[in-house]
């Protein structure tokens, strides 16, 4: 079954706070900060919103959609908060509400002020305490071990990811981690979750983000050019390692088939890729499974700088979660919209018109990709 999204749903406004530390601010306050910016960006009044989609993390932190609606003085047609929501899952939900005519303008809002912001590693989880299987990063680490057993991979490979993300973050005024890093510093960082160094893993940070989606008709009447949702695909690999290649993110291949088929494009058509990168290795699996290169070729692509701004397939010009901030894939959507509008100044990917987002959640059991286009 394929949905024809063509020009049905667009992102009309985005807002992002500074990322990093926000002592004393609640996630709701950070969400409101971002929502105000997104409304101004869209050029619409608050009263136009008739849907509110928020998100919570698995630990229950995040934004409650009813309370949030009350605080901002709205009676929406529908509110929703997915129990686990990267930005992709929430925007998919909002897009469905709009495509079905249940809502016309939906604000997706996320904010977070976690304990240990800027210090604690992301991915806290206890999957199997009896065996000490804790942290979502362990699933990524086991995937990378498997990858290393199949391919000859230079030690510098994941260092390139981090260095490039920090370079991009330095061009991003809201970034939490804009400091440059050298390969020497990366290689000197000790392993903490072999085969990962601590620098391979994202940390939590505080901030807010809002994305306003609307029907195509509404979007076309606004001042800024609409950025249309062209395709979205999700697959939840609930059977975990009963699936072969589970830890190598094999399910991404299923999602790729859906999303490229729906959009009628191939990876060669994508001008800019944003991916929710909880760890450096995620880049490799994303580039290969979504078909930006052959299996085993991503390390070469990274070493050649092809994922830099100006390269063959620029990835996360915002700096991603290793540079800009960790808001579980929400910030990437704001970046994608700004890139496709041509608003990104020094980090602008020239002529970007077709952009792709990808997310991987939990212990690699939740995958989504979406494609956005500007006319």
């Amino acid at each position: 079954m394929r949905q024809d999204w063509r020009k049905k749903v667009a992102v009309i406004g985005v807002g992002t706070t500074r990322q990093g530390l926000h002592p004393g601010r609640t996630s709701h306050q950070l969400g409101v900060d971002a929502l105000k910016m997104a409304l101004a960006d869209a050029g619409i009044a608050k009263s136009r919103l008739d849907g509110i989609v928020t998100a919570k993390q698995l630990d229950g932190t995040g934004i409650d959609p009813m309370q949030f609606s009350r605080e901002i003085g709205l009676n929406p047609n529908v509110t929703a908060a997915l129990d686990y929501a990267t930005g992709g899952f929430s925007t998919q939900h909002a897009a469905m509400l709009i495509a079905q005519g249940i809502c016309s303008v939906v604000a997706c809002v996320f904010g977070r002020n976690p304990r240990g912001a800027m210090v604690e590693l992301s991915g806290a989880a206890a999957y199997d305490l009896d065996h000490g299987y804790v942290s979502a990063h362990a699933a990524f680490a086991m995937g990378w071990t498997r990858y290393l057993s199949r391919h000859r991979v230079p030690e510098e490979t994941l260092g390139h990811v981090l260095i490039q993300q920090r370079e991009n973050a330095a061009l991003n005024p809201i970034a939490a981690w804009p400091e440059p890093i050298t390969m020497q510093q990366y290689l000197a960082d000790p392993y903490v979750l072999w085969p990962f160094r601590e620098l391979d893993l994202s940390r939590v940070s505080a901030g807010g983000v809002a994305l306003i989606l609307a029907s195509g008709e509404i979007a076309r009447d606004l001042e800024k050019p609409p950025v249309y949702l062209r395709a979205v695909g999700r697959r939840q690999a609930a059977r975990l390692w009963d699936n072969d290649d589970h830890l190598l993110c094999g399910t991404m291949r299923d999602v790729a088939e859906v999303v490229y088929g729906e959009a009628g494009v191939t990876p060669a058509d994508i001008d800019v890729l944003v991916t929710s990168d909880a760890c450096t290795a995620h880049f490799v699996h994303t580039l290969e499974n979504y078909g930006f290169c052959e299996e085993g070729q991503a390390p070469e692509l990274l070493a050649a700088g092809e994922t830099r701004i100006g390269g063959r397939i620029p990835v996360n010009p915002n700096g991603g979660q290793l540079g800009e901030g960790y808001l579980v894939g929400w910030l990437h959507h704001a970046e994608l919209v700004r890139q496709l509008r041509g608003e990104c100044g020094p980090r602008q990917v020239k002529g970007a018109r077709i952009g792709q987002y990808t997310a991987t959640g939990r212990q690699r059991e939740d995958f989504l990709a979406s494609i956005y286009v500007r006319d």
Partner: protein
Amino acid sequence: MFGIEPVSKEDDEYRSYLADGEFRCQKCLDCGHLRAPSQPICPECLAEYYCWEPVSGVAIVETFTWYLKPFDDRCTQVPYNVALVRLSEGPRLITNIVDVSMNDLQVGLGVRARAVRGNQGRPIVVFAPGT
């Protein structure tokens, strides 16, 4: 903190066999599918009836990671590893490989099951090198 704590009749049965030093998996009485970890229904045919089938305990290491610093206050005895192994009978399990150095643990290593007490005091199955 959150996670999946297996608390079920089937899990209790699984661990009581391990407490006696026996490693068994649930086998569906309808379709014969062998499943791990334990759960109330067969994921293939949805039947409820099962027996506890003794398994060989022979497995291959498919992948692993080494914790070199604690990632949780309840699991602090670093270094330790967490591994995904595949039993010769088919099912895959999350486990630990014991009696192995960082140098010797490799993808593809042949291992054999051993029933022990885990770091939370409950019976678990771990694996050690050997065929």
